[in-house]
């Protein structure tokens, strides 16, 4: 059965809709609870994981650390999404299951004015202040996705459909999503399942290597893993060997290819010494 990936500009509403869809269809719900598992498995704090998902990087953010945390979440999430019949919300999965045809990608939005009014009421702010806050939130949301995945997550073309709760009620959104997922086009096929397996394997390899190689890129195809890392010329052989050793030991990996991207900054720094 298909996967449903929900993204929303309002966390509470997105969560409620996702849980209701999961309940209606009898699917498993995958949400922020996963962070507890990721935190325990990797000895990191759950709050830090949530911050990496919620906050756009600032000047003082340790980017490599943040990328690593997001990599841990992505690997754990994709591992669950290998199973069918899952509704996933709040883990940025819409950014990394793109092109998987059995994943219905839905975004839930509100009219900015309504969001501002709700925020003003909830936090006792003036509507003007709330409006500014909503604008800032949207900007931050956009910046988060652009800096992390080089994509604007508010762009409608990333999704199969965008539903506004401005006029349509929450239950109607649940109904539309539940109906849509039954369409033939969202049924898992051999090709789309394989694509998902490749993504999960690439994420698992990246998770293992990110500690040593923060600027890593991994691609996987049917058990063959291609790893791109930065290195100085003199360390090249040692690093290639290390990658092969770590990645090769992971379940599902049959062959590892390591491509070196020249570390030009490091090279320049070394030659100027």
């Amino acid at each position, binding site marked *: 059965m298909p996967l449903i990936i929900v993204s929303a500009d309002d966390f509470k509403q997105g969560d409620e809709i996702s849980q209701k869809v999961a309940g209606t269809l009898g699917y498993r719900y995958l949400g922020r609870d996963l962070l507890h598992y990721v935190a325990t498995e990797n000895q990191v704090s759950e709050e830090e994981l949530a911050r990496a998902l919620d906050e756009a990087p600032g000047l003082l953010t340790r980017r490599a650390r943040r990328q690593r945390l997001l990599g841990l979440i992505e690997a754990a999430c994709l591992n669950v999404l290998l199973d069918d019949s899952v509704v996933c919300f709040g883990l940025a999965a819409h950014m990394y299951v793109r092109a998987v045809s059995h994943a219905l990608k839905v975004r839930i939005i509100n*009219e900015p004015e309504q969001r501002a009014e709700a925020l003003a009421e909830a936090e006792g702010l003036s509507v003007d202040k709330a409006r500014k806050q909503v604008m800032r939130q949207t900007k931050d949301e956009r910046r988060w996705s652009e800096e992390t995945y080089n994509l604007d997550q508010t762009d409608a073309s990333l999704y*199969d*459909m965008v*539903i*506004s709760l401005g006029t349509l009620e929450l239950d109607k959104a649940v109904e*539309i999503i539940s109906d849509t997922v039954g*369409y033939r*086009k969202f049924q898992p096929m051999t090709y789309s399942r394989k694509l998902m397996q490749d993504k999960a394997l690439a994420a698992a390899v990246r998770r293992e290597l990110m500690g040593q190689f923060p600027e890593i890129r991994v691609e996987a195809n049917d058990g063959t893993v291609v790893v791109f890392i930065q290195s100085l010329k003199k360390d090249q052989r040692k690093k290639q060997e290390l990658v092969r050793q770590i990645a090769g030991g992971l379940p599902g990996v049959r062959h590892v290819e390591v491509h070196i991207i020249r570390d030009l900054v490091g090279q320049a720094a070394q030659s100027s010494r």
Partner: protein
Amino acid sequence: MAIITISRGSYSKGREVAEKVAQRMGYQVVSRDVLLEASEKFHISEVKLVRAIHDAPSVLERFTHGKYCYLAFIRAALTERAVKDDLVYHGLAGHLLLKGVPHVLKVRIIADLEARVAAEMKRENLTQSQARSLLLKDDAERRKWTQSLYGADPWDASLYDLVIHINQLTVDDAVDFIVQAAGRECFKTTVEAQQKIQDLALACRVKASLAEDECVDIAVTSEFGNVMVYTKQDDRRAHRLEEKLKPLAKGLPEINHLELRAGQPFPPEAC
């Protein structure tokens, strides 16, 4: 019943969706006909109206107000159609032209650029790069148009109730969703909603008549036929405008009362 506006880019299959929705619901489908009606009613060539609704105003036009007038004519024609209800409008800015009407279901249909390029290549017999550059230019022009006239980006999903991506989902799927959504209670034409659209149509009609008479930079509201015309000019300069309102009040039987408000800011709901 409802009013449905479908915003689309070129070759996004929005027209096909609109026609099928209209057929399924037994509604009238309106797009270019609005321009023809406006063209006949206000004696302006259709080409000028097409340009008005497609190309963003140039710097010169911001002073000559050409586009301002044409847009007022198009809006008057569209709202007049919308009063009759049961309508599917596809084309540019329907959601903005009918802003403030509660029973309008605002839909945007999008498609992947590659699919659009392929469709344009096939239909216009163009090379891939020609088709791509034409589409990108067209998209940029539409974006500029909406931004310059309404300060909104047509690509912004928050302007719509439903955005449907034609890729995995087909035209027929999109039709199903729209028909389903349009059946919701909130899109039914209530007495209040009908009154709103009648008032908007009247306000647009007054604005278009004044634009025809070279009165620009005005805003008009109507509530139960009580029409307010707003101008930022002071009382003395507004006198000329007041003279023009008198015959208008007599000529349009729907007007209950007509009043000029000079030197006041335009209310946000005004057309």
